[in-house]
């Protein structure tokens, strides 16, 4: 079986700064794969490199068995979509939700946009009342739901999630994560999810990769993390840090 995403010795260099130092990765179709690491470890860069937003210096990326060239075509964007970290920055400030969702349909020439928009809003749990609102009339969680609807409206098979809930408060976080989980099960999507929150990753993902300084530290199954079967010191420290502040008296 071909991998949904296969990254081989990927190097990304921004103006002499090596953001990714030969990272390899395989994500199976229908799997939910997590990327964990501290800020600056290159996990978001990896996602951006896959969708063509980061300058790839060497290495290769294949999606559903097809190796990608330097330019992505429309067919690629119908397979792979991305949800950004900051829901306050990822929606156009002068467009209604309706316009936002219309745009991908217009670009890809879908005819039944009316029905699709309604269905997409339903799917993410936003009713008709939200359709003609502007981004500033929505809360953070609602915005992220719109962003998810926008990513799903082209019916991709792979969804890249760049810390989709880190800008939201805890209760909304859970709602959005449940929504994502539900959508994944229903549509049999492949997730590649970035987070610095180990709890979220162990909850959402089957396998994960720990990254540090642009390199892969180790590959683990989520259960390994729960049962503390980690081999590298860095991962151990990360686990310790995720337990938070411990009162010593």
């Amino acid at each position, binding site marked *: 079986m071909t991998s949904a995403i296969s990254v081989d010795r990927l190097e990304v260099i921004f103006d002499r700064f090596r953001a990714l130092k030969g990272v390899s990765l395989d994500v199976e179709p229908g799997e939910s794969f997590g990327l964990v690491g501290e800020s600056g470890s290159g996990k978001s860069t990896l996602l951006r490199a896959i*969708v063509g*937003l980061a300058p790839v210096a060497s290495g290769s990326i294949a999606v559903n068995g097809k190796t990608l060239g330097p330019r*992505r*075509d*429309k067919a*690629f*964007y*119908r397979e792979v*979509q*991305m949800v*950004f*970290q*900051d829901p306050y*920055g*990822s*929606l*156009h*400030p*002068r467009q*209604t939700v*309706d316009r936002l969702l219309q*745009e*991908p349909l217009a*670009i*890809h020439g879908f005819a039944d946009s009316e029905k699709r928009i309604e269905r997409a809003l339903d799917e993410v749990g936003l009713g*008709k*009342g*939200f359709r*003609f*609102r*502007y981004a*500033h*009339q929505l809360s953070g969680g609602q915005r992220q739901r719109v*962003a998810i609807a*926008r990513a799903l409206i*082209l019916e991709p098979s792979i969804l890249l999630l760049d810390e989709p809930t880190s800008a939201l408060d805890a209760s909304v976080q859970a709602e959005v994560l449940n929504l994502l989980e539900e959508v994944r099960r229903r549509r049999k999507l492949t997730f590649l999810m970035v987070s610095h929150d180990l709890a979220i990753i162990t909850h959402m993902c089957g396998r994960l990769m720990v990254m540090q300084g642009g390199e892969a530290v180790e590959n683990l199954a989520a259960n390994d993390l729960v049962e503390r079967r980690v081999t590298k010191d860095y991962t151990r420290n990360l686990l310790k840090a995720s337990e938070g502040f411990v009162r010593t008296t």
Partner: protein
Amino acid sequence: MSAGAVQSRRDWLLSERPASRVQARLGRAYVAWRRFTANRLAFVGLLIILALVVVAALADVLAPYSPTIGDLKNARLMAPGAAHWFGTDDLGRDIYSRIVYGSRWTLYVVILVAIIAAPIGLLVGTVAGYAGGWTDAILMRITDIFLAFPKLVLALAFVAALGPGIENAVIAIAITSWPPYARIARAETLTVRNSDYIKAVQLMGASPFRIVLRHIMPLCISSLIIRVTLDMAGIILTAAGLGFLGLGAQPPLPEWGAMIASGRRFILDQWWVAGAPGAAILIVSLGFNLLGDGLRDALDPRSGDQ
């Protein structure tokens, strides 16, 4: 209309849950309008400009005399009075009628310059800002070259090459006034081009052309409208300056700048010949400046949640 009906209409406009595209758009316009009218002076500016438009439209009705044919025998250089409100000029023409007709030429110049210069500036700026690299460098150096010329001198050279006349004056002013718009549009584009919402559109497979036209330009337009409105006064003054130098409107066209130029000879004894068109230019320029200030409050994308 009863107070209740007004109230319900306002609720409909300000609804947090608009039910249609039209309602969402109208609601947004209404918020901008309320912010605009909160500024009294800006409202005065708007009234001045509206009055200019009405005067230009109804010039045939409002002007008691012909703007070009005077009474040389009986009415030369008459002081303002009941028969001639603003007096008459050296050819016996009624200055009030000439100013009323002149409003048409002022509007003509202002509107033509705005619809030529603003789109050029917007296109050059957004393309340069979004494309970056060589395209940006070439387009912006061209802009710099145009910016380096003194405006009036370049316009003069242009009119000298094309020949005097109000159309050529319009072209000359348009050519010298687009570079600042290109700079504004580019600056605005640079602030949004790396934002996630533009990235998101890229990830939908949108072409660069579509992104610039449908996603970046709408964000640049409000600051451009503000700047163009504030520049209107300058455009009127440049047109008047060209008219004053004899390179804009040609006699007997009742253009305000040209009227001042012909009144210059009598400025000490018959001040109204130059004074009346001067006052007209002053008031209209002031109107545009006040309007521009108000629009800045109403449209500024950085203020509030617009």
